[in-house]
């Protein structure tokens, strides 16, 4: 009975190994005695042989994919955190949702004229050849400002200059304070405009949390996913090369 079990366990060995040594091992198992120790030893031998059989494509792919994912995670861990300046604004509006008053406030506060004024005030996005901002400074500034809706009435505003444009943390914080000031200023402008046309008031917006500096680490998941996929592709190539070079068993 244990011999039969040992013969079953022998199927766990890699196919090339069974072709070369299977008959010999089977003869030895029959000669060795009908014991559980023999079954356990053959099982251990099969597992070790599987683990050391690197010609198997699955192992090469798995190992390379894990290596890639690990590399991605390490790169994210050692990357310097991106500095961001954030503040939170809150709407006091008769409307239950952020729209349309939120959009109106955003357009008014972060108009081209207002943002160009901030760019000039802080000398942001300067070209390499002079103190003037680059032609695409306004576009870049808009890309670095993000509005993140937290609740129907609360929005987090962040200013995250990319590495090339990043100034010192103190300047970034002052830029965020200026953006907060523009939001508050928009209250007055919108109230004046609505008073002129005599429409319903869109409410008010206030700065809930003052601008503060935060260290913004990049999201590790995309880096891990890319590392995993790249590793798997590399593993497939390694497996194909090994299979081509492996001597016939």
């Amino acid at each position, binding site marked *: 009975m244990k011999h039969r079990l040992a013969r079953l366990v022998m199927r766990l060995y890699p196919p090339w190994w069974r072709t070369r*040594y299977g008959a010999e091992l089977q*003869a030895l198992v029959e000669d060795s005695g009908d014991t559980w120790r023999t079954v356990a030893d053959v099982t251990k031998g099969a597992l070790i042989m599987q683990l050391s059989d690197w010609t198997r494509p699955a192992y090469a792919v798995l190992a390379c994919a894990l290596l890639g994912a690990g590399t991605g995670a390490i790169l994210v861990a050692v990357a310097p955190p991106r500095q961001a300046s954030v503040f939170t604004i809150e709407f006091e509006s008769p409307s239950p949702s952020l729209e349309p008053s939120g959009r109106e406030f955003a357009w008014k506060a972060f108009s081209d004229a207002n943002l160009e004024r901030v760019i000039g005030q802080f000398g942001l996005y300067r070209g390499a050849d002079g103190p003037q901002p680059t032609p695409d400074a306004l576009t870049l500034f808009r890309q670095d400002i993000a509005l993140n809706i937290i609740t129907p009435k609360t929005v987090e505003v962040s200013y995250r200059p990319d590495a090339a444009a990043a100034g010192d943390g103190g300047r970034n914080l002052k830029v965020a304070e200026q953006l907060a000031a523009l939001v508050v200023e928009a209250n007055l402008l919108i109230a004046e405009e609505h008073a002129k046309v005599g429409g319903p008031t869109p409410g008010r917006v206030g700065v809930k949390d003052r601008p503060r500096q935060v260290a913004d680490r990049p999201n590790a998941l995309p880096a891990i996913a890319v590392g995993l996929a790249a590793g798997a592709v590399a593993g497939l190539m390694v497996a194909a090369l090994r299979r081509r070079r492996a001597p016939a068993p």
Partner: protein
Amino acid sequence: MSDPTLLVLASLADGDKHGYAMMVDIREFAGVDLGPGTLYGAITRLEARGFIKGLSSSDRRRPYRLTAAGRAHLEAQIAALEPIVRAGTRRLRRA
């Protein structure tokens, strides 16, 4: 001292043997019971490194022979072990 590859090389040093003969021989000279899986794991590694070679056989019990490279490897391993054995024996005598 119970490295299966070293035991297999030592067993084949005095002549060709098949798996079961190696098991019996190793049990006699080293007092180590190698299981079939462990023995064939060692045989696989040694044959891959060219230290032993399987001889042609009509029987399932294929005999193995120590190659010149295997003999040189065994001699190097024994030479590396000798000072350890000598030092250990001397120190045990003194203690």
